[in-house]
């Protein structure tokens, strides 16, 4: 019996796809992904209904999903992040069942513990052989790490690898190997490289972002954590990424080498690895071509599964080893709760990803954000949705001031001693409001369109439909 199927249809039939199943997808092809749409289109053509989509993330490219929801092909979604037309439609109550939002670690944990059951995992495979050994390192859709696909492959009843780059047996390295893969199908194209990774992620030149990043690095320097073996994670956007630029001179001045850098990995992190600022990188996802090349060629740059990255009850997870994480926010409230799920009007535009996982694990969790975005203050009385509980957040850094969680008195004292502009978080809120005015508190609709599960499976918050 060969695992290799000649068409997607024959693979779906062999896998036994039937109505009512849960099917999973990883999001390493990001906004260039063709696989999720391709599989759902085929399922629709087969007359399949009532699928639950267990996708690690949903991007704008997945807009055709809206049609599949309207026609009843998909009736449930569980994910760690969604943005674009699907997220918009969900906010407008497109789906009868609330979307279940989990963190990356929470999702992996739910699957590994059996709480979430996957019938068929569809693994977009940039490079695979006929037996199902596969990796993300080669081929036209090379995406680097396959971190979010490991748990699905290991725990799903059936695993279908979908590739556009079939290589002679054995594909090497085998990130996911043949012992876990049931079928392999070759298609013309699994993704658009332009949407998968950016050519380069460049550090922000926005002067406000740079100001914030410099303060963030100074907070690290004053926290006492910046010692040999220091480890860190930063987001890939704006101010968060720029922190690495300010971190380098601090490490150099103190003669310290960081132990590891983690997360979605960018060229900026690779640069730190190659120039000896950090000893190793733990990579759950690559954000640019430089990261893809590095994970392929540099043994100190390791691919790690989501379970190892961030799961809460696993025997060990890397977030618990983190000294410091730098994260973003759409809003943060006076209790330091952070929202990364909805915008200030309540429209879904993201999700936890690893936000709440790293916040829970790291010794120092820093939120970086401008004091206001256009007329909206970043600090609010109550966030529209709690994505990450305030008890796991230590510091808010803005361009005009830094607020420290009241439970971290010693940290606050250290920052004051370092002449950093430390304020009570209420003072930061008021500083913004003096210029913006106080935004009206918006009523939300009554219908629940999303539930946010904390990484341990408990209910953290709910997302409501927009008030029409």
């Amino acid at each position, binding site marked *: 019996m060969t695992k290799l199927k000649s068409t997607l249809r024959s693979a779906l039939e062999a896998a036994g796809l039937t109505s009512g199943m849960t099917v999973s997808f990883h999001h390493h092809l990001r906004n260039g992904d063709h696989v999720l749409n391709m599989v759902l289109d085929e399922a629709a053509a087969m007359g399949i209904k009532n699928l639950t989509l267990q996708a690690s993330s949903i991007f704008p490219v997945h807009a055709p999903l809206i049609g599949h929801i309207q026609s009843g092909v998909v009736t449930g979604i569980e994910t760690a992040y969604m943005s674009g037309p699907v997220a918009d439609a969900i906010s407008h109550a497109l789906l009868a069942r609330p979307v279940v939002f989990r963190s990356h670690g929470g999702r992996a944990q739910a699957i590994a513990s059996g709480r979430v059951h996957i019938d068929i995992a569809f693994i977009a495979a940039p490079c695979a052989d006929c037996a199902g050994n596969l990796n993300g390192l080669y081929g036209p859709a090379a995406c680097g790490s396959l971190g979010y696909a490991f748990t699905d492959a290991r725990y799903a009843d059936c695993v279908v690898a979908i590739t556009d780059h079939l290589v002679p047996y054995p594909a090497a390295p085998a990130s996911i190997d043949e012992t876990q893969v049931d079928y392999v199908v070759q298609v013309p194209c699994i993704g658009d490289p332009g949407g998968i990774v950016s050519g380069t992620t460049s550090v922000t030149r926005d002067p406000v972002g740079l100001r914030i990043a410099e303060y963030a690095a100074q907070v690290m320097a004053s926290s006492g954590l910046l010692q040999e073996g220091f480890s860190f994670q930063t987001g890939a956007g704006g101010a968060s990424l720029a922190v690495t630029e300010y971190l380098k001179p601090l490490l150099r001045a103190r003669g310290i080498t960081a132990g590891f850098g983690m997360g979605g990995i960018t060229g900026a992190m690779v640069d730190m690895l190659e120039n000896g600022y950090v000893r190793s990188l733990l990579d759950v996802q690559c954000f640019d071509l430089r990261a893809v090349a590095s994970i392929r060629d540099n043994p100190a740059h390791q691919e790690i599964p989501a379970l190892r990255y961030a799961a809460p009850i696993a025997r060990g997870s890397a977030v618990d080893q983190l000294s410091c994480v730098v994260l973003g926010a759409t809003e943060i409230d006076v209790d330091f709760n952070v929202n990364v799920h909805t915008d200030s009007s309540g429209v879904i535009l993201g999700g936890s990803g690893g936000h709440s996982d790293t916040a829970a694990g790291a010794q120092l969790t820093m939120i970086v954000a401008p004091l206001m975005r256009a007329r909206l203050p970043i600090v609010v009385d109550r966030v529209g949705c709690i994505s990450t509980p305030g008890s796991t957040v230590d510091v808010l850094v803005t361009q005009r001031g830094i607020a420290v969680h009241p439970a971290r008195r010693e940290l606050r004292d250290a920052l004051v001693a370092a002449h950093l502009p430390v304020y009570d978080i209420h003072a930061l809120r008021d500083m913004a409001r003096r*210029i913006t005015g106080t935004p*009206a508190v918006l009523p939300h609709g009554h219908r629940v369109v999303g539930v946010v599960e904390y990484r341990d499976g408990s209910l953290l918050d709910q997302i409501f439909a927009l008030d029409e």
Partner: protein
Amino acid sequence: MNIIRTAACGTLESSDALITVAPGDGLQISIQSVVLRQFGAQIEASVRDVLRELEVTGAIITVEDRGAVDCVLRARCETALRRAAKEE
């Protein structure tokens, strides 16, 4: 102040507002804003304030707001009104 012609001030960039003023009877104010739900009432109140200060009683005012803070909004409004009141 008499509004005698159509004039505008501002841009559609983030943190700015484009305000257009045209001659009209009475005050007609229409507002589009990225923060309409949070700040719509405050935007209208500020526009009316500026109209009162400049003693404008007849004008059609269109606000296209991209999240301008109050002092910016008022500046754009005042400039647009002054331009619309100016003899060529």
